[in-house]
């Protein structure tokens, strides 16, 4: 035998075991080659496989294993050394790769396993999300329903529509069989079926309000499932069907007074209505939570809508009431205005009408007094005179007061002797005072000016009234009158904090105090004293007469004189002091004392004495016409010039107050114009004053003028002063018979 490099297998080749090994190796190699192929095929099919590298490695490992087993097939028989070398190489490679793969798999297999867990996790999550989605969807649907319902309910402000709409919409949304509303009756002890969905006119079922099931519903703000057998749910005639589930919810009925911003009226309202909702019978439907929520929300909305409707009703009612009141007020105001106008008219008429007869009575009675009378007659006449004097005073007082109130009274300012006023008052008061055995004293301060500027008559009236009151209300004792100039320190009186008299160079404040020891006045009556017609009701005063106007008038006079008047008294029986302060002017010049004796100074001084007075001048002579015009223009008149008679007649109108006519042209034509003018203006007060300007004032001319109805005659040439005085005379008296 040759020695070859062949390697002998350990076992003889004919052994049975060898045969089986041979076959197994073959199949193993086959399998090992086919597995990567399968893997590649399937991986290529799938889109995602993250571990390609692993696959390659694995593939290599398997291929090499297969190769190893395949090569092993040759080692069963005698084989050369090359085969053995290849076999060894293959085995070495296989070992390397398989170890690497083993190492790799240690990393990879946990990952692969966790993929599975992740998948499970994701599946759970998906299921959860699905559930949540379902919930949200239902919620959204509910919300939509609620919005829609609310919109429907709130789109109307009418109570019935609101309730009806609620029921209809709820019925539609929730597919209800029946929906009913039970309202509390007026007595509050029963619930009455007011609205139902299916029945058109619900018969007035009533249910007592204090059933336990109803209490249960009312005590909770949620919708409560109730039994279909309870009285409120037994609306439908009971049939053989299985009734559906019933739910009841309370609807708070809000009163206006309950509607406070910060306080949701959960606890304060006691009145509820009951809304009963029934699912269709035999439907096996159940009330879901979101449906119950929907019902609760709707119930609340209904409550709000109802309250809005109530508020609207209320405000409409209030508005109507206000309008009525407005109309009534307007009417009242108009009536008041008419009344005031009527009163003013009345006073204006009465002013003259009342005074005239009074004057007649007084004048004639006093004349009668002068004649020879028997004692009885004299007594009668004296009584008549006294009564009519009283009446006249009363009329004057009333008229004065109304004029004072209108504000139309103005003071007649003038310079007068102050001392004389006081003396006069004293003289007037002395007789009455001596009859009542009252002692009157007058005390004038040394710095009191003798003359002052003011309204003498009204000052005297005021002093007389105050002193007269003092005398009237005193049965005994004394009356003292003090007058002095009020100094700055004394000016501010505690009684009159709002009165701040400010003396100046031209004015001084006269302060007069009249103190009496009479019946006095209680402090609460003092404010009433100055109100007209209000008298303190004591027996003493009731007998003393007077209409209670005196002090009111005095107060107004004093106010006009920018002063103040008040009365102080310590109480009944303690006498009282009347004090007033008035503002008087200080006369400027020292020769003022002569003033009272001077004739009234004409007030029309200065160029524009008769502003705007419309005058017509007729003169044929151009020059004298111009001169006359100049005169009148200088006096401020509005002069129209005419140079002929026709023009004069054409132009003259009721606007012209005076017509100056030149009549010295020989002939009667000037007079004719006068006659024509007289004819033209029928009413005397519309006619302008006609004055003749003439060069001669002989008797004939005068007679002629008078005959034709002229008002005056002036001799030419006219001086400025003469014209001025003529015009003022004419305008005052409307007649002037001669100015030379």
């Amino acid at each position, binding site marked *: 035998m040759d020695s070859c490099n062949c390697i002998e297998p350990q076992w003889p080749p004919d052994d049975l075991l060898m045969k089986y090994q041979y076959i197994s190796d073959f199949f193993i190699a086959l399998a090992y080659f086919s597995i990567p192929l399968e893997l590649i095929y399937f991986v290529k099919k799938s889109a995602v496989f993250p571990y390609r590298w692993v696959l390659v490695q694995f593939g290599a490992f398997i291929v090499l294993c297969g190769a190893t087993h395949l090569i092993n097939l040759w080692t069963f028989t005698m084989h050369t050394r090359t085969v053995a070398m290849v076999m060894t190489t293959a085995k070495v490679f296989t070992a390397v790769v398989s170890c690497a793969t083993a190492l790799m798999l240690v990393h990879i297999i946990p990952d692969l396993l966790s993929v599975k867990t992740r998948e499970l996790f994701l599946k759970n999550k998906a299921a959860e999300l699905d559930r949540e989605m379902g919930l949200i969807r239902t919620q959204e649907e509910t919300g939509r329903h609620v919005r829609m319902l609310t919109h429907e309910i709130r789109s109307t402000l009418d109570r019935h529509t609101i309730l009806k709409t609620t029921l209809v919409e709820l019925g539609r949304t929730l597919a209800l069989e029946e929906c009913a509303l039970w309202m509390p009756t007026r007595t509050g002890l029963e619930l009455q079926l007011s609205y139902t969905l299916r029945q058109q006119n619900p018969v007035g079922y009533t249910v007592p309000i204090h059933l336990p099931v109803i209490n249960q519903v009312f005590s909770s703000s949620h919708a409560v499932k109730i039994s279909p057998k309870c009285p409120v749910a037994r609306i439908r005639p009971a049939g053989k069907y299985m009734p559906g589930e019933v739910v009841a919810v309370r609807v708070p009925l809000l009163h206006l007074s309950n509607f406070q911003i910060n306080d949701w009226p959960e606890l304060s309202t006691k009145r509820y209505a009951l809304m009963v909702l029934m699912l269709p019978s035999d439907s096996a439907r159940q009330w879901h939570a979101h449906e119950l929520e929907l019902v609760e929300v709707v119930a609340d909305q209904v409550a709000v809508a109802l309250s809005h409707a109530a508020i609207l009703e209320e405000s409409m009612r209030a508005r109507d009431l206000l309008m009525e009141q407005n109309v009534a007020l307007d009417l009242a105001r108009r009536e008041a205005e008419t009344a005031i106008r009527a009163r003013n008219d009345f006073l204006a008429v009465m002013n003259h009408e009342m005074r005239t007869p009074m004057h007649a009575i007084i004048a004639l009675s006093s004349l009668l007094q002068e004649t020879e009378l028997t004692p009885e007659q004299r007594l009668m006449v004296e009584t008549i005179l006294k009564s009519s004097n009283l009446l006249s005073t009363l009329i004057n007082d009333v008229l004065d007061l109304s004029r004072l109130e209108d504000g139309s009274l103005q003071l007649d300012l003038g310079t007068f002797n102050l001392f004389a006023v006081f003396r006069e008052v004293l003289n007037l008061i002395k007789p009455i005072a001596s009859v009542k055995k009252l002692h009157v004293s007058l005390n004038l301060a040394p710095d009191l000016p003798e003359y002052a500027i003011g309204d003498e008559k009204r000052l005297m009236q005021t002093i007389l009234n105050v002193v007269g009151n003092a005398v009237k209300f005193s049965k005994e004792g004394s009356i003292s009158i003090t007058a002095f100039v009020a100094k700055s320190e004394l000016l501010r009186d505690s009684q009159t904090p709002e009165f701040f008299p400010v003396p100046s160079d031209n004015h001084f404040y006269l302060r007069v105090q009249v103190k009496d020891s009479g019946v006095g006045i209680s402090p609460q009556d003092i404010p009433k004293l100055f109100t007209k017609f209000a008298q303190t009701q004591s027996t003493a005063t009731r007998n003393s007469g007077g209409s209670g106007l005196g002090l009111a008038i005095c107060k107004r006079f004093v106010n006009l004189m920018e002063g103040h008047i008040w009365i102080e008294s310590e109480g009944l029986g303690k006498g009282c002091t009347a004090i007033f302060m008035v503002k008087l002017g200080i006369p400027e010049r020292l020769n003022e004392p002569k003033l009272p004796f001077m004739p009234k100074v004409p007030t029309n001084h200065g*160029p524009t004495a008769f502003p705007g007075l419309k005058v017509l001048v007729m003169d*044929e*002579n*151009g*020059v*004298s016409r*111009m*001169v006359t015009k*100049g*005169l009148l*223009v*200088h006096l401020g008149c509005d002069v129209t010039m005419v140079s002929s008679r026709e023009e004069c007649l054409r132009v003259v109108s009721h606007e012209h107050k005076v017509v100056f006519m*030149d009549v*010295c*042209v*020989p002939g009667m034509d000037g007079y004719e114009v006068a006659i024509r003018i007289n004819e033209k203006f029928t009413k005397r007060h519309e006619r302008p004053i006609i004055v003749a300007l003439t*060069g001669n004032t002989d008797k004939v001319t005068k007679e002629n003028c008078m005959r034709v109805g002229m008002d005056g005659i002036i001799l*030419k*040439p006219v*001086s*400025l002063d003469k014209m001025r005085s003529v015009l003022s005379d004419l305008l005052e008296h409307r007649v002037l018979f001669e100015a030379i």
Partner: protein
Amino acid sequence: MELVQIQRRLVDYTKSLFMEGFLDAQFLQLQQLQDDSNPDFVFEVVSLFFEDSEKLLNELTIALDQPNVDFKKIDSHVHQLKGSSSSIGAQRVKNACIAFRNYCDVQNIEGCLTCLQQVKQECYLVKNKFETLFRLEQQIMASGGSVPTIELGF
């Protein structure tokens, strides 16, 4: 001349006019009517007078030249003239007119003619006087002064 001197001249002149009887108190009245709203009143009136008087005098001359003298018309003219002159205070003219009227009443033509002459004369004289017066016033106004008011005590 100085302003004061002119003013003095005016015053003296005016006084002389009054003394001589050319003007009377009526003229003062006229002057009183002159104020800021009517600054040329006197001048206007006087000018008007002279226009009027010229017309009237012409009429009178024509009327007296007629063979049949219309005394009524003459009377009315003279009346007008008298009125005008008395309105402005031309005393002498007025007096002449009065005399004229008297003659007119008695229908004395000779007398009328004489009077007419006299009236014409007086008018002419007083016209000159007025012209001087106004010239002096203008001079004063031009120098920036004011016309002094006359105070006459009589």
